[in-house]
């Protein structure tokens, strides 16, 4: 199951496009993952591995970095890795074709939010098990998927340089309240913003 898809610029972590959570139930839980994803984007740099799988409890992040753009997906841990990476490759080729040249120039977050439409369609293909069979590419092109680095998201986020002010607050709060109701997190966040 693909829960969350995000595309960001590696240089500064600026989110470029994303797909809305579809499911009401998971939508609430996703809040936490989403902020993890945002933090992750801030962490990434030129030296980061270009393909990586990050475990986050029952969920797993997969990302690829191509031409300075990171494509990230959050799936249930059971979701086939192969499919996930094939999905990301699909997104990459389409996104690069549509918006690749504009990526370095934009400053507004989610400048390419309309790419969501494509993400959703592609996602549907990969989720639907019948349609999946038609994706011949996965069997051939991604044989080396097993060799992709695996790490834990928490560790990745803890590691390295000090976090910036606001990010720090996010993390702290997130830790502190992660056990509490997810709606609360949302509220907190909103009040912080408003």
């Amino acid at each position, binding site marked *: 199951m693909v829960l969350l898809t*995000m595309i960001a610029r590696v240089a500064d972590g*600026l*989110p470029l*496009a*994303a*797909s*809305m*959570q*579809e*499911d*009401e139930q998971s*939508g609430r839980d*996703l*809040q936490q993952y*989403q902020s993890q994803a*945002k933090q992750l984007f801030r962490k990434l740099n030129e030296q980061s591995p270009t393909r990586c799988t990050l475990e986050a409890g029952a969920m797993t992040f997969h990302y690829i970095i191509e031409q300075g753009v990171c494509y990230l997906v959050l799936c249930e841990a059971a979701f086939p890795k192969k499919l996930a990476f094939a999905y990301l490759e699909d997104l990459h080729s389409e996104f690069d074709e549509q918006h690749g040249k504009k990526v370095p120039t934009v*400053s*507004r*977050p*989610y400048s390419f*939010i*309309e790419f*969501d*439409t494509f993400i959703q369609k592609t996602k549907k293909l990969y989720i639907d098990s019948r349609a999946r069979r038609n994706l011949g590419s996965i069997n051939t092109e991604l044989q080396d998927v097993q060799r992709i680095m695996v790490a834990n998201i928490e560790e990745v986020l803890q590691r390295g340089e000090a976090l910036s002010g*606001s990010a720090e607050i996010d993390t702290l*709060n997130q830790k502190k*309240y992660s056990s509490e109701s997810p*709606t*609360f997190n*949302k*509220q*907190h*966040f*909103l*009040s*912080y*913003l*408003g």
Partner: protein
Amino acid sequence: MSAPAGSPHPVASARIPPMFGGAATSGAVAPTDPSLAPHQQNGPAQSQMQVPSGYGLHHQNYIASSGHYSQGPGKMTSLPLDSQCDDYYSGLYAVPTQNVMPPSTANQQAGAQQIYGRGPPAPHLVGSTPGSFQGAASSASHLHTSASQPYSSFVNHYSSPATYSANSSIASQGFPSTCGHYATSAVSNAAYPSVSYPSLPAGDPYGQMFTSPNAPTVRPVKDHPFSGQNTAIGHPLPLPPPPSQQHHQQQSLSGYNTSSWSPSGLPPTNDSLTRNHTGSLSVSATNPTSTDSSSSAVPPNVHLPKSSPVVSTAVSGAPSSRMPPTAHHPVEPVTSVTQPSDLLQQKGMQYGEYVNNQASSAPTPLSSASDDEEEEEEDEEAGVDSSSTTSSASPMPNSYEALEGGSYPDVLSSSASSPAPDPAPEPDPAPVPAPATPQPSKMAKPFGYGYPALQPGYQNATTPLHSGVQPSGSVYSGFQQCPQYPGVSQLSSSLGGLSLQSSPQPESLRPVNLTQERNILPTAPVWAPVPNLNLDLKKLNCSPDSFRCTLTNIPQTQALLNKAKLPLGLLLHPFRDLTQLPVITSNTIVRCRSCRTYINPFVSFIDQRRWKCNLCYRVNDVPEEFMYNPLTRSYGEPHKRPEVQNSTVEFIASSDYMLRPPQPAVYLFVLDVSHNAVEAGYLTILCQSLLENLDKLPGDSRTRIGFVTFDSTIHFYNLQEGLSQPQMLIVSDIDDVFLPTPDSLLVNLYESKELIRDLLNALPNMFTNTRETHSALGPALQAAFKLMSPTGGRVSVFQTQLPSLGAGLLQSREDPNQRSSTKVVQHLGPATDFYKKLALDCSGQQTAVDLFLLSSQYSDLASLACMSKYSAGCIYYYPSFHCIHNPSQAEKLQKDLKRYLTRKIGFEAVMRIRCTKGLSMHTFHGNFFVRSTDLLSLANINPDAGFAVQLSIEESLTDTSLVCFQTALLYTSSKGERRIRVHTLCLPVVSSLADVYAGVDVQAAICLLANMAVDRSVSSSLSDARDALVNAVVDSLSAYGSTISNFQHSALIAPNSLKLFPLYVLALLKQKAFRTGTSTRLDDRVYAMCQIKSQPLVHLMKMIHPNLYRIDRLTDEGAIHVNDRVVPQPPLQKLSAEKLTREGAFLMDCGSVFYIWIGKGCENNFIEDVLGCPNFASIPQKMTHLPELDTLSSERTRSFITWLRDSRPLSPVLHVVKDESPAKTEFFQHLIEDRTEAAFSYYEFLLHIQQQICK
């Protein structure tokens, strides 16, 4: 009412508290878990509370700000400012009267210098002596330009008391000062070029002020306080029989004058000047050093700013030149007769009045107590209050004493001196000097009689008067004014002319004797008062269209606010359509680190690198990025950034401001297709509208749309691209609603456009033969919620009857026989909490529910409306809708839909309002959900939504001279951009009651009161709400009355700023929402209440008090040019049948409806040229359009109507109403100044108020 609430008297009763007190909430207050609150507050609110240390500093802040200008970036020193002052005064105000100007400009500069000289070094004085001289000075220094003059003059007054002793000069100077208000308006002109009323009104109000020849009407009341008043109120024809009145008049002329003169030694009624003069005068004369007096002396100082400009405008306008002479003429005979008796009576009266005065200061509490359930609000506040009332009231007696001591001789001299000043102005003869003289005295009686009852005969009397409107006005003015004028001059003469210099009074404070004021309504539209700030701040301040406060002068303490008995609150129109809006994209949005305020024009830069928050006074760093100004492409000028140059800006938010990726625009239509709905035929109109506007729906390529229809079952439509035609899926299990397919119900608008079009074409005919009469609205809404919750968006519900099946079913609660009950109106609240709960769920999922109720029968809007109220939706109601039988409603739906479908929309929004430390917000009005104490959750925001907030003053504002309010609206645009729209409003703080009254924004106040009254109606009862509205007038006017030194119990005096208050309140009482005794359908009433809660001020005011124009004689005189079109500007007429002549045609602008009333005797020329009909008889009964005829009058009329239409989002429907047609009741119900079977006429209402005050 709220403010008034803190009635000092402990006996105060429960009238107000629930509604106007702190706790009431309009939107549901989130049952926020208290434990959560602190966390949520995290950033802003909490820290706001925690900054006491910074608080004390703020004065330096302001001084620093001037310092900043002088020493800041470029050694600019005060020069620029100075020169601005000069420009300002010389440029704008140096106009006509040179004789007045020289001194004032001189003062001006002196003042300015004083300011700069004094400001910086004297900060400590400021805080320590509140209300004392220094306080005034500091505020003056802060208000650079505007305050300067008063200050200087004040200084002058003290330093060289003998300077101004010439009577005439004083007279002429003092007089113009009355016009302060208009001067200000002129200033506003500068700021808002579109405003167009400077000179016209300046003349008019004067006319009005003095038009009142009704002195006689008051007198009888006075003479027979009981009989007169009682009759007035009890009987439809209140006034005593003519003969006796005449008698009174003769007699009372003297009695009247004396009685009123005695208290202050000043003329009776409209002595705008007098009051202040006396106040300050007495003070200065008797005990210049005492703090008491200084506190009362300060006020004039503070308003002075207004008066300084005043001089010029007033001068330019007619009044100054015109009034005196007119005054002179008619007066003389009268005065001559009067004076002697005056003198005789004076002594006796003085004592009597003095006693009265004391009584009157006591009555303030008393009256509220006797008013039984007066507002009590917080007890402690009230307790403190009462003590402070007495203490601060003590200056009043003092000043009375002082006054009397000082004025007594004056009075004597006055009689002598009164003739003296008159000759001086005479050179400029009154427009209608000689013939007018007899007129007023004669006319006076007819006025007195005719007015209350509005007898037909009365009109006859009026017509001649109004034939020459202006002149007659001035004639009357003369009549009224005569006593006043000498009064002022005598006083000044005796006191060496100090008073006038020290306390010219702003126009807004000019006392208006309401019962004598014939034409209270100005002929030009009423504009928002401009806060009394210096020119720089005025220019920067937020447009009143977006952001208004009921008091443009914020009282320093809650006690002062309580004393003023006025509601304090904000009216917001945060998302209105703007033609110009600076949009700022930057990596860092600069905000205060402690209170999270957005940087704004009213912060101060301490130096290049630091700025001080104007709300919590914390000093923040200026981020590096902010040093660069993208507009000028220069570095190092942070104060020139657009954020600091505009009080309304929009930021493109960073991803920090996003909880999730910006959502797409999602529109779901939930449509009633039961038999009733099909019969009404709305589907055709809706589908047609949608088809026409499908491409104009706001949104990006992700936009989604879906349809659900329902009767006793729920029908979904699969519109997945690739299908050959729309698929209808029926769910008949309404007890447990489920979605028949997870996706493809909300589809991408562009990918499935063909299918959508097919569906829209098919829908109107799909159910034509349905026999299903039931309506399962509740389950359909549950389904809608499920569909929308993954994304959020907008649900548009079309309902035509009472929901009769499943969850949320409703029963009829209306008893048609009770529609005109004067007693209890029940069922204003919801019958079930189903809709509210559903709305809260929707709100949580960023979904707003908009309700279109198109029903011919009772549909329990009170319950249904909850679905929109709490989800930040909007409500439209079309009573007795039928697409064929009721074409005007059909047209209205069509027009509304066009606007609704294509207007801007913001998604997943939150709005937070912040205000300067010391103020706090307690009750919000509008459609939203209150998520935490001050965070409004708005699933959708639309440009037609208005909000109101009630404020209280928690901590004294003594050590600040300015307060600010900031609204931040964070929303996702339909293009998927996260944006923050920020409005910042800055207002001065004042310490005297007079200043509070001077700054009242009566329209804002009335709108806030209306909101409060709606809450009150629902939470308590309609009659409570009505009482509270009346009490708001009674309390504020009696509170005002007790502040003016020569308050007469018999006269109903209001400051000019509040003169429309009783009229508007009366209008509210006759509004559908609050009226009683007139047959009003419950749904109509509830809808009116919904509108009051959610309409922005501009629309609400038209709804409360429509504008009436005569349009059969439009001329180009005073016309304005808009887009190469000449738009005539006919004067506003008061809402009274008295204004309607059978020979005329009138246009009434009720906001959402226009009526054109055609009199029976209307000239055929007009009917032919404008309506295209040969004569009156041939005008069709239902005419909703004006033909485009190639005649001048047609062109003018259409151009005027188009201009009115363009000024509002919803294009109103036009009704041509023939006199004698049944539809005319619709028109006549808006003539709120007239008496109906169930309600007072305006004049009766005034008498009622007066009686209440005297009680």
